[in-house]
């Protein structure tokens, strides 16, 4: 009864007094929903996996596969933004995204994300093969259901789990060429999976205040900066041997192996410097910022070396 009374006293929104939010969404807002920056990394790693995979794919079908991977990644981003609009509104980094900025309705973002997800998986299956489509669907569902809905707000290990979502595109790219998966793509998957925690925790260290404000249980917020620095070193120690494993197991040549060893040594050195740090303020976190930037270069060079190695051995 109380509820009914309260509802009865709330004035009805006057849609005639102001234009609806949808009136002001333009194509750039829909594009922003796709998280184009994240898409770049996904497309790059998937394309490298496709080149490294044994076998051939018609260039047009290869292009279609990359397009589907990019669109599915974008769709995941859109669904993620739909679900997280409330916490995006609280963080400076994300407050200008289309939903928290009030440029479109949540339903629009949701239907946009679902349409792109279903469309990209269907086209991948019909044009390329259903193994790639299967892994593409798994990657979208994992990112949206497991990471975004289930774990992100519940555990400080959210980034570790989220790393798997970002790692699936290499499996999809590989499967697009071979119709199957083998040890090497799963090692590439493991590399991205183990690379993600040091990469994002380095960012989270100097963005800690933002995450704290939004109530997202990022590791620096829940366990403190010192613990996070230790975890960065731990995951870096796991990452480097896994990154070298393809060469040791004879799955790649030593052009890749040499690059992995060199880059791994630099990564470990930077992670060690971060682990020894004691800075509390973002302005003093030069080592953390350096590791964050280098981690992007690390992944790009590692996968670039994989492509170069494949081409050299062809």
């Amino acid at each position: 009864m109380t509820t009914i009374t309260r509802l009865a006293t709330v004035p009805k929104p006057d849609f005639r007094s102001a234009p609806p939010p949808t009136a002001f969404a333009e194509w750039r807002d829909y594009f922003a929903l796709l998280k184009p920056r994240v898409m770049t990394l996904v497309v790059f790693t998937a394309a490298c996996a496709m080149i490294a995979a044994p076998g051939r794919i018609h260039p047009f079908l290869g292009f279609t596969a990359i397009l589907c991977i990019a669109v599915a990644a974008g769709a995941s981003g859109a669904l993620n933004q739909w679900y997280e609009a409330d916490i995006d509104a609280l963080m400076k980094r994300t407050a200008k995204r289309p939903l928290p900025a009030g440029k479109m309705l949540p339903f629009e973002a949701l239907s946009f994300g679902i349409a792109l997800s279903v469309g990209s998986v269907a086209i991948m299956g019909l044009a390329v093969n259903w193994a790639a489509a299967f892994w593409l669907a798994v990657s979208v569902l994992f990112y949206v259901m497991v990471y975004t809905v289930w774990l992100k707000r519940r555990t400080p290990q959210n980034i570790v789990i989220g790393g798997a979502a970002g790692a699936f595109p290499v499996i999809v790219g590989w499967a697009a060429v071979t119709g199957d998966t083998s040890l090497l793509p799963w090692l590439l998957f493991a590399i991205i999976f183990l690379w993600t925690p040091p990469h994002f925790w380095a960012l989270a260290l100097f963005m800690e205040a933002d995450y704290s404000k939004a109530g997202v249980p990022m590791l620096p917020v829940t366990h403190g900066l010192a613990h996070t620095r230790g975890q960065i070193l731990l995951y870096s120690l796991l990452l480097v041997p896994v990154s070298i494993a393809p060469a040791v197991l004879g799955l790649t040549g030593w052009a890749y192996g040499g690059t992995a060893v060199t880059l791994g040594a630099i990564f470990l050195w930077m992670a060690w410097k971060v682990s020894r740090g004691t800075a509390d303020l973002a302005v003093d976190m030069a080592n953390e910022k350096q590791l964050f930037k280098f981690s992007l270069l690390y992944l790009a060079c590692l996968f670039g070396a994989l492509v170069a190695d494949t081409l050299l051995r062809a």
Partner: protein
Amino acid sequence: MTIDWTPAERAAFEARRKSRNLALGLLLGALVVLFFGITIVKMEPGARAPSATRAAS
């Protein structure tokens, strides 16, 4: 439904609607080209995609 917009709001709305419609038109055109290309490739002899029998090895 008539909405009481100011002339500036009306102009902004129409500009955005035009840009959205243009983008949607280009997207549909791109999809036509994509499907046409896929069809041509699939009709080429020996251009079948790899089999998808063992996805989860």
